């Protein structure tokens, strides 16, 4: 199994704070890798550093055969990385359609791809010409995910996508991510929802205090409640 993404010895400082303190991780091609950890562990900072939104102060980040740690964010995106930030960051002054038009940077919107997305998130069709700012939190989340998958991407970095979603939509989202995986995408997913993590994850990384404290198979962690309690402070069951 080749690794699509590889971080070695990555440190990130934000102002005076030393947040990432030597991250080593790999994300295997074609798999879903979960990134878990307590609040403040550094999960979001890790995704932002990969995306070039924070500059790594030392260490190496490679995507396939490319070194990306000192590339600018737009260049990293153009290598085929889609990003769904924790804050969703939909453009609230633009309509749902306009948000997706911008996300489809390689050309006009593709109808069959759109229908496929509407199948998972029917609300997006309904609010197609509404301002994204008028959507509910969950609908914004759907739009933010739709933006990352409107065109095929090699690697998706997704930060807590199920936060604030109703159970039915969480199911749709899980189906959607599974299908994206079947289509060949590789996903690095930050997720606290145990059900989603167990359903989707092939591998798991657990972070604490800016380092990776556990790496292994998701199924193994899901079966080992004492390990969950040691790593995450409480069992994954209790997380939902």
């Amino acid at each position, binding site marked *: 199994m080749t690794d699509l993404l590889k971080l070695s010895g990555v440190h990130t400082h934000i102002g005076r704070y030393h947040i990432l303190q030597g991250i080593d991780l790999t994300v295997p091609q074609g798999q879903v890798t979960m990134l878990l950890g307590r609040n403040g562990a550094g999960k979001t900072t890790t995704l932002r550093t990969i995306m070039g939104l924070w500059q790594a102060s030392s260490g190496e980040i490679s995507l396939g055969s490319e070194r990306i740690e000192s590339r600018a964010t737009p260049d990293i995106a153009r290598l085929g990385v889609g990003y769904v930030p924790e804050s969703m960051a939909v453009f609230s002054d633009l309509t749902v359609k*306009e948000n997706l038009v911008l996300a489809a940077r390689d050309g006009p919107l593709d109808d069959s791809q759109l229908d496929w997305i509407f199948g998972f998130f029917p609300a997006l069709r*309904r609010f197609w010409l509404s301002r994204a700012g008028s959507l509910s939190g969950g609908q914004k989340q759907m739009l933010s995910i739709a933006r990352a998958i409107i065109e095929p991407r090699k690697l998706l970095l997704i930060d807590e996508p199920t936060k604030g979603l109703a159970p039915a939509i969480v199911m749709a989202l899980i189906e959607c991510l599974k299908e994206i995986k079947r289509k060949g995408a590789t996903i690095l997913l930050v997720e606290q929802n145990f059900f989603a993590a167990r359903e989707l994850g092939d591998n798991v990384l657990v972070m604490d205090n800016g380092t990776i404290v556990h790496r292994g198979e998701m199924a193994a962690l899901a079966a080992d409640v004492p390990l969950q309690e040691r790593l995450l402070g409480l069992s994954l069951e209790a997380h939902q």
Partner: protein
Amino acid sequence: MTELAATDPLPKPKRDIAPVLLPVALALLVIPLIGSTSSWLTLTAASLAMGMMIFIMASGLTLVFGLMDVLNFGHGAFIAVGAYVATLVLAPFAASIQADSLWMNLAVLAPAALLSMAVSGALGLVVERVLILPVYGQHLKQILMTTGGLIVAEQTLYALWGPQIIPMPLPTSLRGSFILGDVAIAKYRVLAMLIGLAVFIAIQLVLNRTKLGLLIRAGVENREMVEALGYRIRRLFLGVFMTGSALAGLGGVMWALYREQVHASMSDDLTVLIFIVVIIGGLGSIGGCFIGAILVAMVANYGGFLVPKLALVSNILLMVAVLMWRPRGLYAVTSR
């Protein structure tokens, strides 16, 4: 689920029209204070004309603030440079300007304005690369650099053209007024209104109907996310900066013709008004800038007529009042 959704009515996007009503309300409110209808109409026309010129000058600045969070205190330089460059065309062709033929006047005026825009825009390119790029993200240094740039520009204009005020007479066909009953509205004011309106519509079309415009609006709201979608926002910013500089140059020509004179520090008073417009409009909002410019011009004109002693502070008071109502300006479009 999809079928049920499709039959649901589409919620109408809400439009925030309260700010639009503000200048209308202000204009109606002063009618009884001014008393005479013809004075009121004249003052209102003057306000709209002046407002449009200020809008043209301020529109680029608000996008620069909103898009890149860059504090440009040197925007006035583009206004002065635009006006001076126009004299290069207008002075040698003074005969055509004095001719009583609209077409002959325009045949000189239009190239003069276009040359001013080209030179101001090119100067914008240099300023962005040389003064702003190195201090990107550092507000204090931006203020120092751009203020320094403004001083250098003004002194260069003095050195090249001398300290005297240069007359810039209005073309003959644009002198005089349209007479409607007992109301006279200066022709040049009507022209200024039309040009301002055309610029406003053109900017709105670009911002709302083109992908480039969508990117600018998205960038004003969240520049990081635009980059994360794979767009190089620095290039976009350079384009906006140059366009804004060119528009400031156009505004400079129009203002100089309005005042019928050019001097190197002509933009100093205007700059204060432009900053007030950008702040009360909401950083990065073209609609807010448009309304703000009309409000500022109305306060200057009505205020100057009613309480001349308060002319200086009246626009500061306007700013305070608007910010008390909406602390981030009439339309808050940035996420900062």
